[in-house]
């Protein structure tokens, strides 16, 4: 929808100060960057630093760790099934490698496992490829240009971005495997943007010292996902995909090794048992938990399922106390809510402006600082712009770009976003955008090592569900890289593990029983069940009428 009258009035305030702001920009008289001291202070407004936003987990391998309530709620919850009712002698599928999750990490894992001769099943909650991978726009980092870059520089950038808290081994693996990933994707037919002579085009990303961001127009993730999904389909004799069937528990054996998973067909509400010699967890992130009520850029299915079920099976978690908020998510129009507005807008000169038309922060501060400044402006100072849906945002003054770089620049450089807004009757080369920080990435996750292995024998981890490689903050272009590097590694490790495994032992869900007992012992009385599977957007006026006394399953 176009801006309603009340917002149009407020836009006039922005327009009033625009020419002066453009003039300052031209003279390079910018709002000064914050000092380190000031940055530290403003970060108090970052959701990560709100102590009331989190609590200690009382059960499980990472007992005592303080993370967001929404995540703790998922961990301090019961299984969707009563383990006593599951007949583990009735195996429905048997395979070498079971991959849980059909995004970029899971699919690349499946491909590499298949190349090692493994029979693979991908179990995924929605459709194959329904994942945050599909939505990644910016690019994928890799030091492919040996004459001016090297994995060494890439390593330093990743560590710096993660505030030097990253797990060094994982970072080492990430950056050294990166160029191979680009080569591999190219061979599979992935169309990266190239110069006429075939050289790959690369850009800078925030926090990189070299131009090593490879991209495929502004839909890099979608192009990568299309490519590897297509390849998985080409190998359908060895790779089976079970859609709309999320894993809701891992299955172990009497020796405490991972031996499969319990799948849930969301449409028929039946449960199925998969016996697998090795299992790869690749369920992605958790934006749809809407931590601290934030909107999210994430996919419908990003609900932390893998973390929940692996945690129940004894795998610890790390770095989950930090969450990446992207400073500029769409907050109006409501249809596009949460959608990411790339940093490139600010890089091209668009100011962030409050309700009085005043610039309150330099637009090129790091993501966490920028987000905190926007939140402070709206929450503490009350200078945010109210939206018709009762939220707040600040203006991202995109029309400045056309004034600074010539008419038509916005349309040419940001075709995707230009068209998106145009559909809603907003011309972002003439009118500013209303934005607010949005939940973007789960920095932390399950603990794993550089071969993808975990403390649970037979369970491997790949992608956003794992924690450590990005430390406390991920740089742009390293998530697509992460899922492919560690997806491939986990695929190979799992296939190797499956080959070496002969005795599967006796399948059991005893760990679920033990976890339930742990909840009791910690005095957690709850009727919550997890994993969540899908977020609940049912409105109060509907809920009031949903009077069925006993809810079982997703719908009924």
């Amino acid at each position, binding site marked *: 929808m176009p801006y309603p009258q009340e917002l149009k009035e407020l836009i006039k305030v922005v327009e009033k100060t625009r020419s002066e702001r453009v003039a300052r920009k031209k003279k390079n008289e910018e709002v000064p960057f914050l000092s380190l001291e000031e940055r530290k202070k403003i970060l108090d407004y970052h959701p990560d630093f709100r102590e009331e936003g989190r609590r200690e987990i009382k059960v499980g391998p990472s007992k005592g760790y303080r993370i967001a309530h929404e995540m703790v709620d998922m961990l301090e919850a019961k299984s969707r099934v009563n383990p006593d009712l599951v007949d583990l002698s009735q195996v429905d599928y048997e395979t070498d490698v079971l991959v849980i999750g059909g995004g970029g990490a899971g699919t690349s894992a499946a491909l590499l496992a298949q190349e090692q001769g493994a029979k693979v099943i991908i179990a995924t909650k929605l*459709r194959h490829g329904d994942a945050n991978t599909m939505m990644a726009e910016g690019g994928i980092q890799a030091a492919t240009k040996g004459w001016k870059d090297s994995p060494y520089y890439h390593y330093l950038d990743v560590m710096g971005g993660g505030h030097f808290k990253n797990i060094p081994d994982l970072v080492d693996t990430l950056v050294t495997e990166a160029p191979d990933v680009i080569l591999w994707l190219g061979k599979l037919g992935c169309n990266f943007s190239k110069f006429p002579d075939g050289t790959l085009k690369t850009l800078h990303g925030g926090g990189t010292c070299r131009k090593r961001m490879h991209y495929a127009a502004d839909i890099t993730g979608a192009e990568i996902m299309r490519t590897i999904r297509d390849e998985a389909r080409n190998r359908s004799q060895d790779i089976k995909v079970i859609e709309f069937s999320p894993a809701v528990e891992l299955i172990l054996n009497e020796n405490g090794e991972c031996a499969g998973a319990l799948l849930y067909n969301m449409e028929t509400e039946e449960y199925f048992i998969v016996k697998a010699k090795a299992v790869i967890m690749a369920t992605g992130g958790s934006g749809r938990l809407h931590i601290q009520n934030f909107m999210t850029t994430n996919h419908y299915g990003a609900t932390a399922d893998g973390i929940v079920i692996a945690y129940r099976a004894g795998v610890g978690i790390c770095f989950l106390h930090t969450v990446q908020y992207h400073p500029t998510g769409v907050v109006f129009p409501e249809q596009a809510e949460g959608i990411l507005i790339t940093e490139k807008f600010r890089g091209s000169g668009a100011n962030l402006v409050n309700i009085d038309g005043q610039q309150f922060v330099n637009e090129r501060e790091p993501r966490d600082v920028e987000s905190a400044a926007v939140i402070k402006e709206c929450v503490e100072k009350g200078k945010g712009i109210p939206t018709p849906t009762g939220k707040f945002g600040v203006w991202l003054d995109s029309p400045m770009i056309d004034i600074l770089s010539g008419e038509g620049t916005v349309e040419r450089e940001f075709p995707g976003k230009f068209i998106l807004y145009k559909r809603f009757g907003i011309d972002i080369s003439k009118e500013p955008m209303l934005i607010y920080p949005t939940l973007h990435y789960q920095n932390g996750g399950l603990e794993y090592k550089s071969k993808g292995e975990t403390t649970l024998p037979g369970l491997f981890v790949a992608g956003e569900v794992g924690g450590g490689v990005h430390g406390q903050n991920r740089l742009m272009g390293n998530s697509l890289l992460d899922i492919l590097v560690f997806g491939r590694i986990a695929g190979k490790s799992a296939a190797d593990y499956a080959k070496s495994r002969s005795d599967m032992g006796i399948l059991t869900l005893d760990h679920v029983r033990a976890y339930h007992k742990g909840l009791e012992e910690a005095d957690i009385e709850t009727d919550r069940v997890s994993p969540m599977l899908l977020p609940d957007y049912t409105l109060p006026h509907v809920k009031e009428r949903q009077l069925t006394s006993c809810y079982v399953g997703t719908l009924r």
Partner: protein
Amino acid sequence: MSTTDTTKGESKETTSGKELVSIFVMGKKYEVPKNLTIMKAMEYAGYKYIRGCGCRGGICGACGTVYRKPGDYHIYVGLACQTVVEDGMYLTQLPFFPANRATYNLEAIGSDPEEVYKKYPELFRCVACNACTKVCPMDISVMDYISAIKQGDFEKATELSFDCIQCIFPFENYGG
């Protein structure tokens, strides 16, 4: 201004003070606030998605929707997460549409229309009716890129089809 429940991050509008429009979900009438997308309007009406919902940002192709408007013979196609409801709209989602898909080995095939003919002979029966372009929810010139393939111009075909979100899914021996 309406009141809004934002307890779950996504804006969720309540009925008070909202201008409502009527939509027909698979023929059944619901009153929903105007300006909602089809996706949010159906959630407003009480539907909970399993199929037909994905990225909610217009790039995954899960929510293809067919709709018509009163007094208009056209059939429209859009993504539920991107298309705003209109009064009197009749709609049904197409969360799955079976598609023919060939298996191939990229290394072994050349960039020759003959290869495409072997895999997809139906493309060469095109009579340029342009229905393919009209139903594309991403406004891709489907007919033009198919033409480019037949003319052996794979670069042009790639460029023209680049925004494809693959809203239809293959039905080969693939699912478990």
